């Protein structure tokens, strides 16, 4: 539901980062999205396309890397992906664990057009 806001925040960040690379065209942006981030991939794709259509960023590619929900067991230190919405440790059965991944909503990288080598 808030994917338009998320897409718009991504584009603001792209614009700000692009200023640090004057002269190179931004071809794509890579984002990392965790299972707990409440962001739907398809809705984000749709919002991104809608916001970039007929703008300077029209062909900007959005690359989404999906991250699972991960916990670390506080009893046996096992690190595991949470499946079926149950945080119980699959190794020792303990219920006490701490979240170590899945809340990501990060901009990982920009894909920039290769600059032609400057001639000596």
């Amino acid at each position: 539901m808030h994917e338009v806001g998320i897409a718009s925040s991504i584009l603001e960040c792209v614009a700000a980062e692009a200023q640090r690379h004057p002269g190179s065209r931004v071809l794509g942006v890579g984002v990392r999205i965790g299972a707990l981030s409440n962001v739907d991939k398809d809705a984000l794709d749709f919002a991104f396309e809608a916001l970039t259509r007929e703008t300077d960023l029209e062909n900007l590619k959005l690359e989404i890397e999906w991250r699972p929900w991960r916990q670390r067991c506080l009893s046996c230190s096992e690190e595991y992906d949470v499946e079926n919405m149950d945080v119980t440790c699959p190794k020792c059965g303990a219920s006490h664990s701490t979240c170590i991944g899945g809340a990501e909503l990060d901009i990982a990288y920009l894909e920039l057009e290769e600059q032609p080598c400057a001639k000596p």
Partner: protein
Amino acid sequence: MREAVEKKVLSENDRLAAELRQRYRDQNILCVNFISAPGSGKTALLERTLASFAPGRPVAVLTGDLQTDNDARRLAKFGFPVRQIVTGGTCHLDARMVDRHLNELGFRGPGLLLVENVGNLVCPSSYDLGEAAKIVLLSVTEGEDKPLKYPGIFHRSSLMILTKIDLLPHVDFNPELAFENARKIHPEMEYIALSSRTGEGFDKWLRWLDALQQKVQQLAAAINS
């Protein structure tokens, strides 16, 4: 050519939320953020909570909705400063809205700031408002599996309040099952069942809130000293 960025998408909101958190700490304010689906009883919970407070207690309320100031009017009856945040279609509150309305309200700590988010179990969970605790409400007229359907918000909340328990004799809702589902997502989450209509369970809720305010004040005192 790939250029690493490594930045949070919501870094601007996070930055403003960190400023709010610092302000709350400096001024000794406990801020809690109430989140639930529309109609789970956030405003009713706040009404009875405000009614129980002694007059003059330093308390302020921000309440968010897409449209209307109905909730602010309901909550203003109790004599505490209240401000409606009309988001005009945005499905959540963000740190900028809270900052602006808090300034307009002119509320300064020490005290308690109650923030009623827009009715929505999805989007509000992504936006940090600088609060000390998120509180998620679930009413007995909803499904026991809501924690499993919306894990993000149940995972991030410190407390789950089961509301409208006066209706339990009339609905097929199993509170134990709802709590068990919530525990699967977040084993450490605390749990209170209450009715804002009859007042059942309110003692426990008010004690929880007072204990958290005491804890936050002690922490602020320790940091500021």
